[in-house]
């Protein structure tokens, strides 16, 4: 194999967006090393512009016919482009909202940004990884960077503890995931590409029941994936990590890392496990039911804003799984649409929480009492984002939820959709509770933190980016519902442009119709 033909086979231009992010990472690390601490004044903007350029570059690759790169190791199809875009965008917003927070906590900013960029890189590669080794390395890049980010406030015992718990649970879940992957390698007779594994498993199963080996591999793999998307019962780490770690990190974990988990789930299950389609669908039904119930019910009892958002994100993951379970073309499209909207509304919510904790130093819900009189902008932003998370019209979250539930209903998941409706009504209750707390009228009900609320100043270093991200997130959250057409067509086009989803949907509808015919006979 000579060099030119090898380089065409590798097709490295598919990962150009990742290379841009990598360049930004290297620039941040090296410049911080050379210039010293003063570099942290401009390194965040280098990182953000790198991420945005990478998103633009992703747009250019939309209709790429040669999406397979690295001899089948990486698949840059439309599905991966959407997920990589979500992850890169969430990282960009996270950097904007973290500048002031990190400076105020007295830790180094440039290292924080470089670790965050590495996590982004891992997530982006994970969204397109099409082969077991690449999946594993990308997953670990994402996970190890997340452990480091979680423990970044190293003099805060809560941050230490969160990092230790996250590391131990995460490392053991990735060991279990890896055991499942090694079984896949063996069961397929030595294949590591997902497509080959899918074919080999289908061949070896034939028409009979799947062997116990395939089922065990499936269960182990799902355990690893469910940990990443924090589905109940693999959620134990979520509230602790969310409460203990720095708030910008939580924002990234709840959006970027979760989106990467969903991308992995779709690609792995659809490509490698079509033969046990019924089984994994069943497992995800169970996960979705548990996540929706537990996430939304336990959130009622929370007193800390970060823990509340943690449980709410568990519940939201349950809703997103509806689309995966439906398994239709619109099912996947509604998932992607929901994740997009979730990106904006959740990051908007976290921006407000960060602003509040920067000014008052607390994130207890009771301390938000009476905030309306001191800071109307913050109150408005947080209220809009929470209403959108709860799914109140005309916010974007309402339309995203509506689409998801409608798709689930179309696919015949009546019980699941009803449960989702009930739990989202419950979720509205705890979101409204926070809003009610903020807009109390009487001054004597104001909490101590709000009474001593500092004068709002936007010209302090690092506050402008916070303001920009607050306003843009809130604007998108409130307008994206009414003007949702571009996002919606993007989500639909990404599904219809992805060959692997198309072939899977075709195959599964055929098999469903066959079983229907069987049952009628």
């Amino acid at each position: 194999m000579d060099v030119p033909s090898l380089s065409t086979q590798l097709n490295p231009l598919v990962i150009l967006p990742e290379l841009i992010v990598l360049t930004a990472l290297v620039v941040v690390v090296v410049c911080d090393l050379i210039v010293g601490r003063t570099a942290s004044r401009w390194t965040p903007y280098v990182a953000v512009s790198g991420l945005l350029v990478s998103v633009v570059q992703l747009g250019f690759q939309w209709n790429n016919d040669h999406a397979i790169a690295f001899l089948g190791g990486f698949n840059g199809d439309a599905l991966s482009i959407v997920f990589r875009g979500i992850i890169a965008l969430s990282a960009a917003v996270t950097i904007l909202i973290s500048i002031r927070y990190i400076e105020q906590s007295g830790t180094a900013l440039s290292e924080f940004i470089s670790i965050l960029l590495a996590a982004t890189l891992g997530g982006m590669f994970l969204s397109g990884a099409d082969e077991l080794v690449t999946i594993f390395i990308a997953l670990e890049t994402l996970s190890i960077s997340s452990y480091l980010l979680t423990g970044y406030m190293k003099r805060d015992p809560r941050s230490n503890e969160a990092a230790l718990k996250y590391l131990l649970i995460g490392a053991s879940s990735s060991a279990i995931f890896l055991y499942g992957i090694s079984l896949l390698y063996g069961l397929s007779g030595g294949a590591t590409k997902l497509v080959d594994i899918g074919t080999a498993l289908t061949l070896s199963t034939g028409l009979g029941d799947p062997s116990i080996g395939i089922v065990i591999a499936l269960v182990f793999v799902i355990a690893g994936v469910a940990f990443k998307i924090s589905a109940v019962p693999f959620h134990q780490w979520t509230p602790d990590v969310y409460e203990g770690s720095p708030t910008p990190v939580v924002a990234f974990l709840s959006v970027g890392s979760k989106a990467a988990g969903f991308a992995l789930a779709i690609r792995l299950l659809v490509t490698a496990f079509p033969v046990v389609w019924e089984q994994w669908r069943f497992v995800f039904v169970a996960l979705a039911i548990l996540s929706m119930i537990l996430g939304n019910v336990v959130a009622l009892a929370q007193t800390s804003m970060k823990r509340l958002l943690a449980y709410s994100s568990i519940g939201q993951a349950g809703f997103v799984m509806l689309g995966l379970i439906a398994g239709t073309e619109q099912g996947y499209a509604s998932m992607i649409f929901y994740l997009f909207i979730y990106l904006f509304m959740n990051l908007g919510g976290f921006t407000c929480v960060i602003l509040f904790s920067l000014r008052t130093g607390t994130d207890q819900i009771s301390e938000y009492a009476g905030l309306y009189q001191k800071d109307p902008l913050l109150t408005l932003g947080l209220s809009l984002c929470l209403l959108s998370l709860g799914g109140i019209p005309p916010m974007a979250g309402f339309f995203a939820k509506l689409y998801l539930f409608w798709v689930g209903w179309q696919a015949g998941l009546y019980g699941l959709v009803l449960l989702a409706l009930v739990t989202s009504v419950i979720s509205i209750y705890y979101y409204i509770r926070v809003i009610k707390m903020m807009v109390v009228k009487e001054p004597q009900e104001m909490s101590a933190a709000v009474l001593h609320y500092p004068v709002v100043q936007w010209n302090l270093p690092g506050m402008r980016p916070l303001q920009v991200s607050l306003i843009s997130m809130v604007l998108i959250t409130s307008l994206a519902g009414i003007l949702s057409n571009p996002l919606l067509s993007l989500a639909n086009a990404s599904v219809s442009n992805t060959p692997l989803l198309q072939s899977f949907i075709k195959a599964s509808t055929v098999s469903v119709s066959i079983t229907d015919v069987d049952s009628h006979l």
Partner: protein
Amino acid sequence: MNLAQGVQVVSLGLLSLMVLGAALGVVLANNIVYSAFLLGGVFISISGLYILLNAGFVATAQILIYVGAVNVLILFAIMLVNKREDFAPISSAWIRKGVTGLVCIGLFALLSTMVLTTPWLIASIPASGEQATLLIGEHLFSDFLLPFELASVLLLIALIGAIILARRELIVNEPASGVDAGLMLPERPREGVAVGSDP
């Protein structure tokens, strides 16, 4: 059975006994230092198993990285975290251990049924043996190029992050006071990182 096969079978048996015994020791030993050394024993005997599986290169890598790096790192951590600590006993700890043991035995029973009932697709071609190192190199620079390069980012970030988390914060302004200042590294006082003291 000729001599070579006999040697292989005997060493296989010995090595697996060593692996299982040392692994049980890692988990059950009371003294954490014994556990760490037994962990080294597990790593070395597993690398012996790799040699039996015709993988000399990986066996070497196992000894170099696991014994030379990971195990030494763990020993260093034990020395740095060297408080002799008697954990306060919890009542009903034995119930937890018993239940966990039963669960693990059940898991083993499940996995071994799976191993024994699955018809593995044993290949008929001979093992690559001496060619293995060459093949690994070719893989690393063709179809596994992407994970190979990504692993460098992973290692870089692990390096940076581990240094950040483990180093002490040096005091910049005030010099360390006291007579034995030369003996201890100055460290910034541990004030809480209250995030929003004053905007």
